[in-house]
């Protein structure tokens, strides 16, 4: 399984969530974050803003869905050619997923029930 962490513009969050929902990926966690990229923030006049507000979307998906999900996020979060600040997507591996309410354990090998 893979964890997708996407940092997107706050105004694009709804579009991304809608896009994911329409393709059958309802489960997402959202966090407010602030950060800067390789442009070192934005310089407006004399002031440099290097803690730009962004939203972090986090989801865990099966390996096979990786390209689809990344495509969905890209399609919704991109503002246009050459615009900086549209965000980044990070992919990392997840060994095990547990659902607290049912105790079901999911791994790449399959699912099993964990006795409580």
């Amino acid at each position, binding site marked *: 399984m893979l964890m997708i962490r996407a940092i997107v513009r706050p105004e694009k969050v709804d579009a991304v969530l809608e896009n994911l929902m329409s393709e059958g990926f309802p489960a997402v966690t959202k966090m407010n974050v602030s950060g800067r990229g390789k442009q070192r923030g934005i310089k407006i006049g004399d002031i440099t803003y290097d803690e730009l507000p962004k939203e972090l979307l986090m989801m865990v998906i099966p390996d096979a869905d990786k390209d689809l999900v990344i495509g969905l996020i890209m399609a919704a979060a991109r503002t246009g050619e050459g615009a900086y600040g549209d965000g980044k997507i990070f992919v990392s591996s997840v060994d095990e997923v547990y659902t607290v309410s*049912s105790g079901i354990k999911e791994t790449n090998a399959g699912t099993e029930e964990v006795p409580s």
Partner: protein
Amino acid sequence: MKEVMAIIRMNKINETKRALVNSGISSMHARDCQGRGKGLVDIQLLRGAEQGYEEAISQLGNTQRLIPKRMISIVVPDSLTEETVSTIIAANRTGKSGDGKIFVMPVLDAIRVRTGEEGDEALDEA
């Protein structure tokens, strides 16, 4: 070592912290987040449905609301992973949907900033 990341109910955080300390896992990182799961529960809709409003009943199950949650993240040695997971599950399970998810991820290295220790030594529980 492994990172155990759990997304749990807001009102279960204190109970979870107490349970973790009791089983000897004291260090953690917590933050607020919002999220949605399979989209099975929407409190407003659920309330409406319980009162018998047809619009609410027909909309059950296709909602897109984000629900406030707490996220906790703990890095533990491999040997403690299972205990951490079972402690969190025991403290948080109510049996209803919305109890949360736990993700177990590999961590390549850990370094304690104060002393420069690396690997399992840098973890408090090792």
